[in-house]
Each structure stands twice: as C-alpha cells, then as structure tokens.
C-alpha cells in the first residue's frame, strides 16, 4: 500500500471515513507495525491524509482490512500477553487490565457491530467488544482514561475495561483501541424509553429516578481523587462564566442568523434571537459555578443501557466533533444533566414520530422531576452552584446551549425533528420571561 493512489482509494472507501466532501491532496503511511503472526501477516498502519484546505487527518488502518476479524483477534491476543511492538518511527503498546476475567477466554465467533464516524467495533462471542479508533488524535483517548479511572475508583455501572493498545512515536501519540466487556442482554436506554413511554410510563419514570442516582454517583466518583491531575476537581477561574456566556451567545447569534424564514416548525422562535441572547445574559449573572470536574461529555439516553436491573453508562468518548483537548476538559456537572434532560424532550417527541403514539400528558415534566430528584439526592453539592436558583439558572444555560446546537443539527440533517429544539428554546423563553 505504498502507492499513494491506492491508499487514497482504500481509505476513502471505508465506512468510517468521515471527510467525504474534502479533496485529498496527499496521502502517506507514516508508520506500520507488524503483529506477531506469519501467515497471514497482520499489521496496523498509521496513515495521514492531507486535504487541499491545509488540514489533515491521521487514520489507523488494519491490514488486511477485509480480514478485520482476524486482525482484531490477533490484537486481543497481543493485549493478553502485554506485547510491545516496534514500528519504524514508534511503538505500539498492547496492555491487559489485571484481573479482567474475559481476557482468558478463547475467541470463537466475531461479528461487526456497525461503524460510527470515527471508529469500528468487533464483538466476540457476545462477551467482549474491541473498539478500534480509526481517526486518531494526539493524546489519551478520554474513553480509555475515564473507564480506567472509574474502574479503579469502584464505579460499578460501566462495562468493565479489559485492555487497550496505543501508539507513541514521531507522528503522534494516541490511543488506538480498547477492549471492554460486552453488555449482554442489555436494553438500549433510548429504545427502552420509546417502548415504555407509551405502554408503561410509570415504570420508566421509576427507572429515571434510578438513572438520576447513578448519574449523581458517577459525578461523585469522578470528583473523588484530588491526587490525579487529570481528574482533580478545579475551582473555575473568575472568567469561566463569562467565557461560557460569550461562547453560547455567539452560537445563538450564528444559528439565528441563518434561520430559515419559511419553515413553519421554526416560527415560534423565528426573529427572537435577541430575546434568547437577553435570556442568556439574565441567566449568567456572576456567581460561583461549582467545582469543575471531568464529565461524561456527551450524555443522553442513547449512552445508557438497562441490564440486570440497573443502568450501565456507556461511551465516554465525549462529543466526537470536538477536539480531544476540548473533550478532556473539566466542566460543570450540570452540562451532563442538561444533556440528559434534553434527551427526555427528544424521547417524548420521538414516540409520536417513530412509534405513532403520544406520551402521557406532562410526561416530560415528570421525567425531569424524577431524574433530578434522584440526581440531587446523590451528587456532591460542592460540585454545584450554591442555592437552588443558581443551580436552576446554570442548568438552563446548558439546556439552552444544547438546544441551540440541536436546532442547527436538525435544520441540517432532519427537518422533521426541528420542532423538538424549537419547543425546548420556547420553553426556556417562556419559563424565564414570566416575572418572578
């Protein structure tokens, strides 16, 4: 694969290749590392694609790509033995997590579980899942970092980490993949919501109360180690609220600038950009924002699973569109909470869009209340602003930020769904413009 044309052809035809609209100017393999097999010869390659806009991406390739199960199996076996492999410009380290039982087993059946934009996953025997990061960014992947931390600090509601492998060398140092326990027989939180919302709403509300507790506990554990610099809670700087306000404000301005005039779904908030910005300013009057810690970063029902009578929290990668340094950043825990609350709004609307039934009247309000009740019972109050009204205000800021982001996303991708963020923004406008 030394020929540039073949490499471009190869990479751009992969499902995980994310930059489909960009023109590639150069492509090259920066390093390749052979796995200790002879026939067939398996390998990992680090390849760089340069675009004509001056940007570039670095990808991990498995060789041969059409036998990715074979490569994956070999990777797990090398992880088990804790191998360090030499490339021409760096090394690949494969490491097991001590005491992880799943590593001992023989890998028989492998299946693909769909590729997302930046990674691919292989499931072995419904027991293990190997996630291979395809688009690489320098630094520790937050997924690995968070799972290790949560495992070491005894947070039980995750799928256990079994091992990982990473590259360090001239081109960059990056996490290449992780091995995790596969949650068998689990039910995706989003699907469960849609199923139960119409049929057994009361039962699901009970589950949401538990989800609130698990979330509060997750934040408590994430804030529990002052000796680990990457996780040690931080007192936000005096500018932090100002920086947040400015960022959200510019986002609102940008989105409202290009709001389509003719779209009926948008009409409740059309032309109200300035009102939304005023609202934001009212909500961010200076005050202590609580301690900042590492958070889930992309928290919604789709990142949860109900298995063995409890919630499992998944996917600690953070928002894939953000840079890795951005995703590893310490933030207010209320950002995760807001993400989940927005997810309830989506679930309430999706039931009618996807399942053709209506949620019980006032379901979303109840869902919010039950989740928050469980959350505030367990979370460490030092992580929150002082006083309920300050908490509510900051929570509303994050919901607004999220809803504005959703608005742009739905306008670009799913016009039928635009009404959901519109209602979210409208709700915030109405709640807070009522004189106190």
């Amino acid at each position, binding site marked *: 694969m030394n020929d540039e044309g073949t490499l471009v052809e190869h990479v751009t035809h992969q499902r995980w290749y994310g930059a489909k609209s960009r023109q590639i100017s150069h492509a090259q393999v920066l390093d390749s590392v052979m796995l200790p097999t002879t026939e067939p010869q398996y390998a990992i390659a680090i390849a760089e694609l340069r675009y004509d806009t001056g*940007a570039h991406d670095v990808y991990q390739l498995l060789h041969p790509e059409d036998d990715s199960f074979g490569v994956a199996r070999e990777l797990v076996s090398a992880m088990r033995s804790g191998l360090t492999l030499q490339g021409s410009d760096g090394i690949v380290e494969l490491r097991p997590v001590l005491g992880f039982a799943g590593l001992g087993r023989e890998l028989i059946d492998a299946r693909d579980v769909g590729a997302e934009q930046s990674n691919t996953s292989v499931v072995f025997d419904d027991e293990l899942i190997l996630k291979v990061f395809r688009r690489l960014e320098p630094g520790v992947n937050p997924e690995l970092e968070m799972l290790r931390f949560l495992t070491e600090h005894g947070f039980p509601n995750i799928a256990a980490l079994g091992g990982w492998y990473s590259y360090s060398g001239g081109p*960059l140092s990056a996490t290449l993949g992780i091995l995790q326990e596969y949650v068998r027989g689990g039910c995706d939180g989003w699907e469960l919501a849609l199923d139960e919302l119409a049929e057994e709403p009361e039962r699901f509300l009970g589950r949401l109360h538990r989800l609130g507790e698990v979330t509060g506990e997750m934040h408590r554990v994430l804030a529990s180690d002052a000796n680990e610099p990457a996780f040690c809670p931080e007192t936000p700087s005096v*500018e932090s609220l100002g920086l947040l306000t400015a960022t959200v404000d510019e986002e609102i301005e940008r989105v409202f600038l290009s709001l389509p005039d003719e779209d009926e779904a948008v009409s409740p908030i059309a032309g109200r950009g300035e009102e939304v910005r005023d609202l934001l300013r009212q909500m961010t009057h200076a005050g202590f924002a609580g301690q900042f810690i590492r958070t889930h970063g992309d928290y919604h029902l789709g990142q949860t699973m109900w298995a063995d009578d409890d919630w499992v929290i998944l996917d600690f990668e953070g928002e894939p569109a953000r840079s890795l340094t951005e995703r590893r950043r310490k933030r207010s825990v209320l950002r995760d909470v807001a993400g989940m609350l927005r997810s309830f709004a989506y679930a309430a609307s999706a039931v009618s869009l996807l399942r053709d039934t209506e949620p019980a009247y006032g379901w979303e309000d109840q869902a919010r209340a039950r989740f928050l009740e469980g959350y505030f019972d367990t979370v460490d109050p030092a992580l929150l602003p002082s006083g309920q009204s300050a908490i509510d205000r900051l929570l509303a800021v994050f919901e607004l930020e999220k809803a504005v982001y959703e608005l742009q996303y739905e306008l670009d991708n799913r016009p039928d769904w635009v009404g959901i963020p519109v209602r979210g923004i409208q709700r915030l406008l109405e709640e807070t413009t009522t004189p106190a």
Partner: protein
Amino acid sequence: MSEQWFERDPNWFKTAVFYEVHIRGFFDGNDDGSGDFRGLIEKLDYLQWLGIDCIWLLPMYPSPLRDGGYDIADFFGIHPDYGTVDDFKEFVEQAHQRGMRVIADLVMNHTSSDHPWFQESRTDPSGPRGDWYVWSDTDTPYQDARIIFVDTEPSNWTFDPIRGQYYWHRFFSHQPDLNYDNPDVQDAMLNVLRFWLDLGIDGFRLDAVPYLYEREGTNGENLPETHAYLKRVRAEVDARYPDRVLLAEANQWPEDVVQYFGDGDECHMAFHFPVMPRMFMSARREDATPIYEILERTPGIPSNCQWGLFLRNHDELTLEMVTDEERDYMYMEYAKDPRMKLNLGIRRRLAPLLDGGRDDVELLHAILFSLPGSPVLYYGDEIAMGDNVYLGDRDGVRTPMQWTGDRNAGFSRADWAQLYLQPLMDPVYGYQAVNVEAQLRSPTSFLRWLHRFIALRKEHPVFGLGSYEPQRTDNPRIFAHIRQWEEDIVLCVHNLARSAQPVQLDLSRYAGMVPEEMFGRTSFPPIGELPYLLTLAPRGFFWFRLRQTA
C-alpha cells in the same frame, strides 16, 4: 510517559495567531503584587477561548531588570518574582493540554553586567571566560556601528575600571555583548537553547539577532558570520527538536530581514518591522500607498518560512525603519506630547494611538489579519487597553492586565501599594471602564469582535499560506488585495478614509464568481467583465470569499 499533545506539523506557525505576554503584568497567582507563572496558568482558559495558538513570553530569566529582563543574569533559571523552573514546566504542559504552544524570548547578543560570565571576564582577563566579551584598550574600533538607544547611550563602548579596558555593547552599557568569535560562547548558547527545548518549549523569539558579530569597516549588522551561526542553531534544532520555531527579531529593511530565513535553513519566522509604522501612516494620511509600497519592497520568502506581523508590542512603536521625513510625520501625528517619544519611537498602546476610535482599531486589525504572515497580538490590546505616558521608559505600555472592575483590576489580591505598577485608573481607559469581565459579557465589545475575527481568520488557512496580489485602483484611499491558496480565493478591501468611499476593482479574471462576505455570509452580485463597484463606509472594510457559481 510524557504526553505529546501535538501532531507533527512543521509548518504550524504559518497559520498560528501569536499572543505576547508580559508575565509580570498578566496575573498575580501568589498575591505578591507581581504577575507569575501560577497566575498565567489560571488565565490559560481565557487565551484558549480567544483563539491563541502560541504564547510568546517576554524574558523570564533572573535579571536585575534594568531593561525589562532583556538583561539576563542567568540563562538557566526563572526570575524569582515569576516562580520556579517547575512552575514554568507546569505552565508549558498546561498550555500544551489546551492546544497552545509556548515560545520564549531569548537574548543571545548580550548578558546583564551582573551575569557571572561577565564578572569572571572582567576580573580574570586570562581566565577561561576572559575572552567571552568584546574587550578593547581603546573606544575607537567599529566606529561605523550606529548607536541604538540614542536617548541614554553616548557610545557603544564603556570603560570598565576593574579590567581597565573598554567593553562593547550595542544596547545599554549594563548589557555587554558576548563575543561570538569565541567557540566556547557559541557552544554555551547552544546549551542554553537545549536546556529550554528539553523542558518542552516550542521555540524562541531571538532578541536582537543582527548584532552577534562585529567587523571593522561594517555597521556590525547582518554579518555573514551571524547568519552562519544562526544556521548552526537551526540545524541543531531540526536534528533533535522537530516542530519548534525560531523567530528572529531583526529591526531591519525587508531585503535585509529575508536573509534571516536563509534558504529555509535559518530562522522559521522574522518580524516584518517596516510594515507596522506604515499601517499607522496610511490610517493617518488616509492613503494606502505606504502599505502597498512596503509590500512591493518585500521580497518573497522560502515556503517553510513566515513573517510575524504586529501592530504594537512591549517596546516603543519603533521608527527605525522609516525615512527621516516619515519619522517627523509620525511624531507629529502620533506623539503630540514629547513625553510620548522614546529613542526612535513612540511609547504608546494601540487604542490611545488611534484616539480610542473603535472603527480605526478594527480596520487596522483587519489589515493586519489580511496580510501574508502570522499576526502577533500584544496583551491588553484585545480589550483596547490604554497606556500611561507619565511612567518611565516603556513601563507605560506594561501596566497590569485589566481583568475586572474590582480592586487592583482583578490583577492581584496584594495591597495596592505593593503592585509592580498601578493599573490605569483614568476615566477613559481605566480598569473600571475597560476590563475583560465586562467585555466578555457585552456582545458588542471589542474583545468579542476580535474573538470572532480570530476564529474567522483561522477557518481560512489562505491567510497564513496564500499568495498576495495587490489590487491597486484609482482610489488611493482603498487598500485592496487578493489572497489565494489552492481553491480558496479571498478578496480583502479596506477603506483608510474617514469618509465613505467608492471603489472600482478590475476583477474580470474572476468573472462569473460570486463574492460572499465572510462575516455575515451574504452573497454579493456576481463578478462580470465590467469593473466591480463597491461602496465602503468610513474606515470600513469587506472580506469576501470568491465562490464558483454552482
């Protein structure tokens, strides 16, 4: 494992936005009245938000501070007011985690007279460092070398009563020049570079590089020996430290400065000094000619090199690279009070130089950001801070950063009297009127405008990488040019006049394309064969992306 936060990208500096920090004036992390590295760490989130790619630190070494730290007394330490070497390491790591790089000022030409090397040299002429400085029995050699600090220094030679000889100094008499003819000095300076590079620093701004060597019958600037030594430094950096940058401070005419790029094997970057006063001149005269002319006079540079561009910095607005006539004009227009003059320059900040005119400040930033090069911002100018011309030397432009309207401008929790300098308190530029906190909260503030503008520039690598093609028209008040990099074509039109102006641009080469204004993304009428007519507001500007019609 030490974590590496950047992908290998040897040309990162070509699309970067730099920010010059005066550590003492930025933020006080230990309440002693002086800014320090702990404080700087606390403000990294702010710099990251602003969109800064690389922080340039003014000298941070132990120093008697008779020249703002450019008089270094120990190349391997940190000034105790700023913290420790460990604090510095932590700062670099924290900056890297936020995706920002760090370069530091390094003075190779001279040391402080307090430096142990100089003390050894003056007391032990036959010892191992006896020859590390430039000594002479008389003050007559090298008479063709000009005096730089004309306000304070009568000669480049000063008599040392201890050694009984004269020593050579291109700057203050307390800053003896090192003798680069001595191979030990050359090696010692390479050791200094390695020390900091090993600590993770991303490069250096090399202060006063033209003066390393002296030769009889020359002006002692830009000598071939100096270039040869800089090439040796570069080779050392390339071999062991990829992705680093050497930024030359050579206050010279463009044709001399380009020598510092070598064939892409000397310095990565050099400041473009002469373009700076011409931007101010053009704004005052309402005439784009000085900018066009200096850019015409600027030779091409190797593709792996870049100009550093700036409006203001920690020094006086230097007028060395203008004609006498131009200098008189600048003094007359921008330094009405004689206190504002210093050496061959004007010691004022950007906003007061432009009489606080918001349109003027925006226009000059637009021109700066549109030119081929990487912009270097000076701390405080992003909130349009003022200056204090009643303070001595260059302290007037080095007052504490104004963070909030609270006590000490939010810069320090020390007692007012303990501060290294008091923050500005005048009604126009004082910290109650001008501060980061208030500007962050106000969507129409200059800070918020600049933040959006930096983001816009960074979305388009063309500004760092593209070609430059002037578009002179018959309206001299308009500065217009086209930048192009691969398929990305950008048209920048700036009105230097205080009145509205029409301009007709010959864009027939781009006929059929549609100019899209870059801020608001509004499409303008397509370009045809006839001259393209634009109307600009007073001190207004347009940046367009030229798009193919579908």
